[in-house]
């Protein structure tokens, strides 16, 4: 790996200054679990590697004013151990359990996972289902983007070259769940992943419902057709069948995707979604 420069940044402002100066010549590095792969495969060349892994204020999980806030440098391992997230955001907690092997989880950060914008990113569907907001800073400015507007397309997002993800915020959602299917039982990129966050009213009807998919389209997406079927109705086997049917409208993988066909994702997605939906409600309704 020649042609790279390395800078270690110790604070947010220092990082923003470097980014403002170097712009597209810079690459932020935290856990480096994606960046190292890109360097080894020469997708990345001649960059200034800005190491932000030492910035303590970018890390941590807190709850204030009814919102959960996760610093961008919080590792997947920390999310997987969080008692708060286990109770208040099970979808994200569950995604962290099956994210990767322990050594990768110890380095990989939630900010890095969404910044990389892989269509199969494991934390993306939970954050989409939780209606998360992304706090983004640049020199002299802070903006907030809804996560659904953050992702643009295949490995692309709204982040400018001089911007840094600071944190991710969302409201607690006890009734949420996540599951993924990979080509093996662990350490596997998703063939398809599903996250659901749902609220059920007194009449056992679905009051609100957010369904999100990974590896179903060129970017992580909300499954609006499937959501529409469920909102306002009481889940029944017939309704789940309709939901699965509607889900096909939400699945539009890259036709070149070699790992699994659209048909596979549709059929498997339908049964996976039903399972995750029931997990989110917390009690299976037969």
């Amino acid at each position, binding site marked *: 790996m020649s042609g790279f420069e390395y800078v270690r940044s110790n604070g947010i402002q220092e990082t923003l200054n470097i980014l403002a100066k170097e712009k597209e010549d810079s690459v932020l590095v935290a856990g480096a679990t994606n960046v190292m792969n890109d360097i080894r495969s020469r997708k990345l060349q001649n960059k200034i590697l800005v190491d932000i892994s030492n910035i303590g204020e970018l890390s941590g999980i807190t709850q204030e004013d009814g919102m959960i806030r996760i610093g961008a440098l919080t590792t997947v391992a920390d999310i997987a151990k969080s008692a708060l997230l286990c109770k208040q955001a099970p979808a994200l907690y569950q995604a962290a359990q099956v994210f990767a092997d322990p050594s990768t989880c110890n380095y990989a950060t939630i900010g890095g996972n969404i910044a990389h914008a892989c269509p199969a990113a494991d934390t993306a569907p939970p954050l989409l289902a939780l209606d998360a907001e992304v706090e983004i800073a640049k020199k002299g400015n802070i903006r907030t983007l809804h996560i659904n507007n953050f992702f643009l397309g295949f490995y692309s997002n709204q982040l400018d070259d001089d911007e840094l993800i600071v944190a991710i915020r969302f409201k607690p959602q006890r009734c949420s769940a996540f599951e993924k299917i990979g*080509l093996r039982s662990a350490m596997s990129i998703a063939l398809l992943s599903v996250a659901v966050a749902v609220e059920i009213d007194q009449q056992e009807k679905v009051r609100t419902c957010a369904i999100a998919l990974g590896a179903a389209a060129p970017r992580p997406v909300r499954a609006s057709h499937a959501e529409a079927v469920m909102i306002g109705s009481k889940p029944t086997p017939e309704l789940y069948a309709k939901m699965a049917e509607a889900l096909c409208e939400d699945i539009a993988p890259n036709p070149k995707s070699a790992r699994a066909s659209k048909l596979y994702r549709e059929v498997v997605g339908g*049964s996976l979604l039903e399972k995750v939906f029931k997990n989110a409600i917390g009690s299976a309704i037969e």
Partner: protein
Amino acid sequence: MPLFAEGNKKYSHINKFCPRVDAKEKVTGRADYAADLVFPDMLFGGSLHGPYTHAKVKRICVEKALAVPGVRAVLTYKDLNKPFSWGYYTYMTEILRYEGDVVAIVAADTKHALEAGLEAIDVEYEELPAVYTIDEAMADGAPLVHENNEDCAGNIWSHARCKVRKGDVDVAFTDCDVIVEREYETQAVEHLYLEPEAAVAVPEKNGCMTVYACAANPFFGRRWIADSLGIPRSKARLVQTTIGGSFGGKEELMGLTIGRASLLADATGHPVKMVISREESIVCSSKRHPFKFKYKAGVNKDGKLQALQVTLIEDVGAYHMHEFMSFRAVVHAAGAYVIPNVKVDILGVFTNTVTSGAMRGYSSPQIIYAQEQFYEEVAEELGMDFLAFKKSNMLHKGAIHPCGQELNEEVILPEIIENLCAKTDFEGKRKKYANQTGDKRKGIGMSIFHRGCGLGNESIDASAAYICVHDDGSVMVNVGLVENGQGLHTAYSQIVAETLGVPVEKILVNKVDTNTILDSGPTVASRCTVMGAQSVRKAAQELKSYLKETAAMMFHTESPDQVALEDGMFILIGVPDAAIPFHEVCNVHHWTGGQSGVMNWYKPPKLSFSCKTGFGDAFPTYSYSVCVAEVEVDYKTGEITVEKVTSGHDVGTVINPETSKGQIFGGIAMGQGFAMMENLAIKDGKIRNKNLDTFMIASSMDTPEMEAILFECEDKTGTYGAKSLGENATEGVASAIINALHNATGERINKIPINKVKMFELLHK
């Protein structure tokens, strides 16, 4: 009746558990891997690969690279004294035949200078048309992988020829009641040893070249040194470092790396270290041969196999070194069955893809996958129960092997089958699983197989051992075969302990240094215990006879026959309390001028099989195995769960039950990966999954519950009656899983690997 191998035979040091002698250095991280070695003034070496799978170098300019600060040498094919290496590979080449070919090598002071040097080499290529599959390579007018090569007829390799001819299949087929024909296909598989290839070449002041390398075949390594530099073998020395796995794979790329490091060390006068990256190892190292199989059987309504015709077509890749495999493949093509008329042919086809080579089994995992499914399909066509069909045609003592050999040793297949059937409730489960409905369906499957022990007629199965005692009673052993993770040093320590009559703790087995032992051939073919240890045993026996003379003298007796050595003590037979510790005898032995070291040699009796006649005795003896797999298939998702694998093996005499079971467990994981997961994503001849993020092997979460069962019998062929096990452990697993999937789904899988997506597509076609 066979014994369960739990130390039932009357031995003191073998046939029982002994902790691995290399465990401590490995688990504490102290083992000396080649990539860790450092020498004064050492340089770093690396290779430049071309961007094409088939191309000619039109122009190559190294001036800019030589101008890079820290670069000490840049070598291209122009600097070689001959175009091809030993084994027809190329160290550096003008014609690139696959993406792993190298056009130039560089030595530099630092890794950064090395990388800059490699990037500064200016090459202009002329891309040539290429062939990537067996079908493309065999098509009329196909581009040639090797132009003007007398070993090729078109893209067909004329050396990959061996055959079996027994009886007359053409006549027999006309008389058969039922003819069944099927085709199967397997993929290339990466070995994925934990430690990629690494070598350090050190030029010596006397004109010799020493290379330290994780070479699984050190004497091949010595050939590569001598070949690359054009020096005599006597001036080439290979010192084996700790090997982090090989599975048959540390051979071609390892050898080329040894040669390239030697060339750079010779050119610069400095030690040169070459460490292969994971990506380079996956792209350049040999792979398990991909095969296409055509099986045709003729059988009578009584269920007796009458005739079998098999054509095996291997994708050789761009280069070859494995004509030996042709022999093993054809001899095992018919499986463990009695068939009066057999015709087997093999064909090797060159393509512009990664080279094929030895990988745990050397054709058997592929062949058994095809044949054990095929015989089930034959039984199905006959309307017979497949197990009854297989049992009625199975090899037995006194039977004639498919290639003509009379089997005079024990054949314990019926006992192994009976035991595994009882243990797994095989027949009960099969019937229970026959008519399932619902989303999740279970299946159970079996494979029955045999393996020729050691090299047999494949190659010379001779080996050397040197054993000496020091005056303090410690014992040192030099051998020519390597510990590559299989537990060889532990087995050899136990065999020396057993033969000499001293505890294992007294014995040190050294890694191979080609200057200290005779060329004992390669560490392959599961030969090292069954045959390789024969020389170890002979040397220990001879040494013991010399020590007994000294002990007899110390006991003041005329005859050494009156002396025995047990548990580290020399005793005088029949005289109570007459005992002298081993080390005291060794001390006196040394100071009275006794011979304290022995080099011995073992060469097995000659066999008679010939690839020209296709008939004869192929192996000295065979080991027999049965594998049972239990699976569950989720119809909704295609998910395949291998729930349990039970693997039973005839090991003759087990040397160490725990390390043997360890080999079987590893073999199951490897066989499962071959059946379901391990696949190189090759597009236009280029491998796309070059690292562990995309190349999938089974994780510990995927591996099934495993049960290893060892069976023993009386067969005097191998060392202390031991048979082969290392490759047997993996070769029948894929087949058992595939047959279990048929039991669960009714689907035949004629191409592997089958993952959940492919299973889903099969179920929803």
